[in-house]
């Protein structure tokens, strides 16, 4: 499987996949001017590697801030993950929020409703 390890910048999140942990992690603010340019290679990676991903892979999202351009990209990413589930994978999706943060909590609610996927909302931050 191809490696995926994109470090965070001031306006884009870190994105990585650990085959040892079967863990796909997106963490950090996502406020690029053009989220499509940033997320397209990640979408392409997921598309190329979806079948090879472990059956019990975890996808973790920790996005304290994101703009609406990124919101669309994250939605598309989740729909790609759903495609994997439809093909028989049992992915686990975790969405991290800060305690009492309406922005992150409402984002999780929106994605659950829009994707019709079981997204598990957790308070705190993922172990990096």
């Amino acid at each position, binding site marked *: 499987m191809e490696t995926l390890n994109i470090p965070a910048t*001031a306006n884009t999140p870190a994105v990585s996949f650990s085959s040892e942990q079967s863990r796909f992690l997106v963490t950090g603010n996502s406020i690029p*001017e053009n989220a*499509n340019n940033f997320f397209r290679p990640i979408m392409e990676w997921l598309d190329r590697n979806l079948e090879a991903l472990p059956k019990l892979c975890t996808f973790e999202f920790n996005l304290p801030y994101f*703009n609406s351009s990124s*919101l669309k990209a994250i939605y598309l990413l989740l729909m790609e993950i759903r495609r994997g589930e439809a093909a028989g994978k049992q992915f686990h999706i975790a969405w991290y929020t800060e305690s009492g943060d309406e*922005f992150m909590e409402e984002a999780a609610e929106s994605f659950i409703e829009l994707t019709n996927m079981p997204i598990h909302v957790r308070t705190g931050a993922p172990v990096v």
Partner: protein
Amino acid sequence: MNTPKDNPEMDKSLLDYQGQLSSEVRIQLISLLQCIALCNLGPRNDLKKLVGVALELLDNAQRYNVGSDVDFAWHIAGGELVVRVTNRAIGTDAERLLKSVGEIARMSPEEITKAFRRQLTEEGYGEKGGAGLGMLQIARKVGNSIRAYAEPETNGVYLCRSEVSAPLTRHRA
């Protein structure tokens, strides 16, 4: 005498910026706004939503601005947080801004949610990287109080102003 901490909704200017709007400036402005919001409005569950309004307007201004400086203002007036961004744009982008804000102004909350879902799930990205969701997202999050103006200048350039008023009377943490 009331201090800002005693009465965080007193009328005041929280931030005025006039200058070039690069990605770096936009990122730094957002960080500064988070700090200003926390200091002046106190802990609230909706702080990021309020800063998010500015983020969307600044995104649009950076994406569609042509050449010159941008004006950004973040004020409290009449118990509302008022965010105002002025930039210059070509005619087609100015028209799209007015059309989008005009359509949203006529929508009910349910129609806004429906339009947001449609735009998110069915439409692609624009040529300049916009998802067409910014104004709909603002209307969903802080209410339908978006205003937009565009005045023609020279050489097909328009002076565009977007303004959002978000109520501050709820969401204390």
